[in-house]
């Protein structure tokens, strides 16, 4: 995976990790073992141990910091890395001594137990950097490493002072889990190395395992990395995760639409952070409601939409299943609603902390009856902002539920976000009905909730409180226009077709799909969602090697942009890389009867650039 930054590329097919702590903290051992595990795993690697000149500098001081940096990669590498992408800091001094090397967006794992007043002072901090926002541009995991290590070792009756020594193994266990290093070599090493002292073997083993399990339990994500600021377009930037960008996008859209926002949600990894973020923004007239389950979450959002707010619900995995029935009701009621799905590995509980793109067909078809719903997908962490605004726009303009797809990789990954000027953001105009829209034969003026806008087929919304527009809506089929219950067969067919036509018609409001094809290629790579970065990098690489390849990325999965048929017709071969078994490919084949080549990965982890490159090269080779 490579994130493009102009000329600078941080190649995330590799990882640079730096363990830093006090000299007594066992950082070299930790680094060494991490390296050894990786070597056994088959990585190429390079290391850079760095320790104080003094035999033992005063504990807790900058001088006493010891570190070990290692780069591991899936391809030939030549250095231990220019800077770390991950920094493990066991105390304030270790943080202070190393933070300058960490690019923004880098990961910090630090031992929060060591950040007491005295240690901070020793390291020369006047404020606690874990609390003063100075680390905002990094991805910070503050873990109580010492106390968890002590707890883990309690069972064997180790004295705290002895037990504490095992904390490097806790850190190693955590990092090993995070980056999926093999555990057995380290466990073997512990047994062999400390063979003479059973208690130390025990303590280190317990600490190591506790670290692993903590990683698992705490549901920490593998993250993606980002980029020095130098080669970005001019502007003010902040480093942003997908979930934050998505939250801000929602807030911005509601703000631009001059509507209150209501979020009904039930916690679930990796969507919960959106609930957490939005719950802070009461000042924006955002109400968050932690419902009793996902059904109540989406129902309450729909109720709020009926009341004139923009109703939003956020979830992942199993949560999306539970919302199906209510989304179908929203289709029938034709009310605005945004359903955010942060896709994770399935089926069932599956791989809750891993990313997958495997809900596409579910959100397309996962409702009984004919119930079309528009689908929008974000492609990078920062793009979640834009995608959220687009989802809200469609929901409000067409009075329809909209699925907004992200995934665990985007949700927790971060990249620089160019801060838009508030006024740059397009206004979203929402018109509510204020007066009757229909004259009955007997002369009475009434409000007909299903008398549609001719162009968009959107129905008028009259918000409770509006005098004279009282009306009732429900999930039973409605007569065209009046919205009264109707069991008439032809009316039903008409309504089914009209709902479909309304969703299809959204394409009128969409820009054409842009194709990046500088050289008139025969092969197109068509992607959607979080594969964006990898696809761009792979295509760039191949172009640099002289190959001719076109590239396009879909943000709208339903309806597709109007020109997609034409785009597809231009290319002999189309490669669709997906982190699923070929769900977009399935849609494309059916809709356009176009044979496409699938590249599928279902490992809960993103593609590597090289995988996409390889698939493209093999297509190029078999070409004509």
């Amino acid at each position, binding site marked *: 995976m490579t994130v493009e930054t102009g000329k600078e590329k941080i190649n995330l097919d590799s990882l640079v990790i730096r363990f830093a702590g006090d000299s007594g903290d066992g950082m070299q051992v930790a680094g060494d073992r991490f390296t050894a595990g990786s070597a056994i795993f088959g990585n190429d690697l390079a290391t850079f141990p760095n320790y104080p000149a003094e035999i033992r500098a005063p504990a807790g001081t900058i001088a006493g910091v010891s570190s070990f940096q290692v780069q591991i990669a899936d391809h030939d590498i030549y250095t231990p890395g220019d800077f770390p992408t991950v920094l493990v800091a066991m105390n304030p001094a270790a943080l202070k001594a190393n933070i300058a090397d960490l690019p923004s967006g880098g990961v910090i794992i630090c031992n929060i137990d060591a950040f007491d007043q005295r240690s901070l002072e020793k390291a020369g901090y006047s404020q606690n950097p874990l609390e003063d926002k100075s680390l905002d541009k990094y991805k910070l995991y503050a873990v109580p490493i010492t106390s968890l290590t002590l707890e883990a070792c309690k069972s064997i009756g180790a004295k705290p002072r002895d037990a504490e020594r095992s904390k490097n193994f806790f850190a190693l266990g955590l990092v090993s889990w995070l980056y999926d290093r093999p555990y057995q070599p380290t466990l073997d090493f512990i047994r062999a190395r400390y063979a003479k002292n059973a208690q130390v073997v025990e303590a280190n083993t317990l600490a190591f395992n506790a670290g692993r399990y903590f990683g698992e339990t705490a549901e920490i994500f593998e993250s993606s990395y980002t980029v020095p600021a130098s080669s970005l377009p001019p502007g003010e*930037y902040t480093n942003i995760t997908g979930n934050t960008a998505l939250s801000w996008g929602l807030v911005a859209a509601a703000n631009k639409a001059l509507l209150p926002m209501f979020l009904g949600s039930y916690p679930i990894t990796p969507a919960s952070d959106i609930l957490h973020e939005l719950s802070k923004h009461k000042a924006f007239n955002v109400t968050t409601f932690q419902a009793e389950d996902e059904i109540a979450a989406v*129902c*309450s959002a729909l109720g709020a939409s009926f009341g004139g707010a923009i109703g939003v619900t956020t979830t992942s995995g199993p949560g999306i299943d539970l919302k199906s029935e209510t989304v179908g009701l929203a289709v029938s009621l034709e009310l605005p609603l945004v359903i955010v799905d942060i896709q994770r590995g399935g089926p069932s509980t599956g791989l809750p902390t891993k990313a997958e793109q495997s809900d596409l067909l579910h959100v397309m078809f996962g409702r009984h009856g004919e119930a079309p719903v528009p689908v929008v997908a974000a492609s990078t962490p920062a793009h979640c902002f834009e995608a959220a605004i687009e989802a809200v726009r469609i929901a409000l303009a067409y009075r329809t539920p909209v699925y907004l797809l992200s995934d665990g990789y985007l949700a927790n990954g971060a990249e620089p976000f160019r801060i838009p000027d508030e006024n740059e953001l397009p206004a979203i105009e929402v018109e509510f009905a204020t007066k009757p829209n229909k004259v009955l034969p007997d002369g009475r003026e009434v409000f007909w909730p299903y008398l549609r806008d001719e162009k968009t087929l959107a129905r008028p919304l009259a918000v409770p409180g509006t005098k004279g527009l009282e009306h009732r809506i429900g999930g039973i089929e409605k007569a065209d226009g009046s919205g009264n219950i109707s069991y008439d067969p032809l009316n039903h067919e008409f309504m089914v077709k009209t709902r479909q036509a309304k969703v299809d018609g959204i394409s009128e409001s969409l820009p054409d799909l842009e194709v990046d094809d500088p050289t008139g290629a025969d092969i197109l790579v068509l992607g959607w969602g979080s594969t964006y970065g990898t696809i761009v990098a792979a295509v760039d690489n191949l172009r640099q090697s002289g190959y001719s390849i076109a590239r396009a990325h879909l943000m709208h999965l339903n309806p597709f942009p109007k020109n997609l048929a034409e785009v597809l017709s231009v290319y002999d071969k189309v490669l669709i890389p997906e982190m699923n078994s070929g769900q977009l490919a399935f849609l494309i084949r059916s809709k356009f009867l176009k044979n496409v080549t699938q590249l599928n990965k279902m490992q809960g982890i993103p593609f590597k650039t090289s995988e996409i490159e390889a698939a493209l090269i093999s297509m190029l080779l078999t070409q004509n």
Partner: protein
Amino acid sequence: MTTTEKLTRKDFMSDQEVRWCPGCGDYSILAAVQLLLPEINAEKNNTVFISGIGCAARFPYYMNTYGVHSIHGRAPAVASGLAITRPDLDVWVIGGDGDMLSIGGNHLIHALRRNINLVVVMFNNQIYGLTKGQYSPTSELGKVTKSSPFGSADQPFNPISLAIGAEATFVARTHDMDRAHMQYVLKRAYEHQGASFVEIYQNCNVFNDGAFEAITGKENRQDKLLTLKEGEPILFGKDDAYGVALNDLGGLRIVDTAKEGTGQVLIHEEKRSDPSLAFALSRLGIADTEPRPIGIFRDIEREDYGTSLSVQQENVLQKQGKGSLSKLFRSQSTWVVGE
């Protein structure tokens, strides 16, 4: 919420034909509500009825107000979102015993504990009407229905006990044969700030005819119905022949007032913060020898959910001022890339 010109029942009748079976108890509940709303000066445009699915749940169609006929069991959840965001509205939730206690049981108890500002009215006919006669969570043990040809094995819920166990702040019961009492109870429910739960015994004359006849039938009421009245001794029977008193074990017993006098008889207090006595009262009438209480079991004050959130928002606005996107986007550290 008052309006200048006085409305009448007709104003609250929608133009849709009422499609319940002739003789269904739902008619009298509809009439009670349509008569009540003008009386309490409710405004059509500020009134919303939200229902699930079932015969009872057809209710909103017949009210000339705003309304949503949603999906089975979910009305309290839909209504919660509406009531929280629109504290200016009167939000009513209507449903049957299946809708509210079977598929929707969880949403109901959560809405009650959260004290969301709703009037929740459950039409209890102890049967599934719309799906033509299966037993419901309030059907009696051993009931023979289409889905229980050998008798139901399910212990029924006591809706009042359940609501009290779920921390409800307003809990009441009434029945479809007594319009005045229905209106009284519904009015009180309407006046309560927070979640009000009202169970209405309702006759389904097609699939469970006479289910409450032994209690609400004209000849039986005097002995079998006990009308709870705030501040009054809990008496029932001809000439208040009986009363309800505590027994030694935290339960209740029936006293013969002629023999024992009324000294022991409990005074009904709706506002007790301890729900224990309200709970004990909800257990009356399970045995045939006891009367079934109707009226308001409990009506206490506790800040409703919407108000709590409004207060929080007020505080935030006071501290932070109205949200600014520009500030939001700069709430983390930022950096500038120059031309």
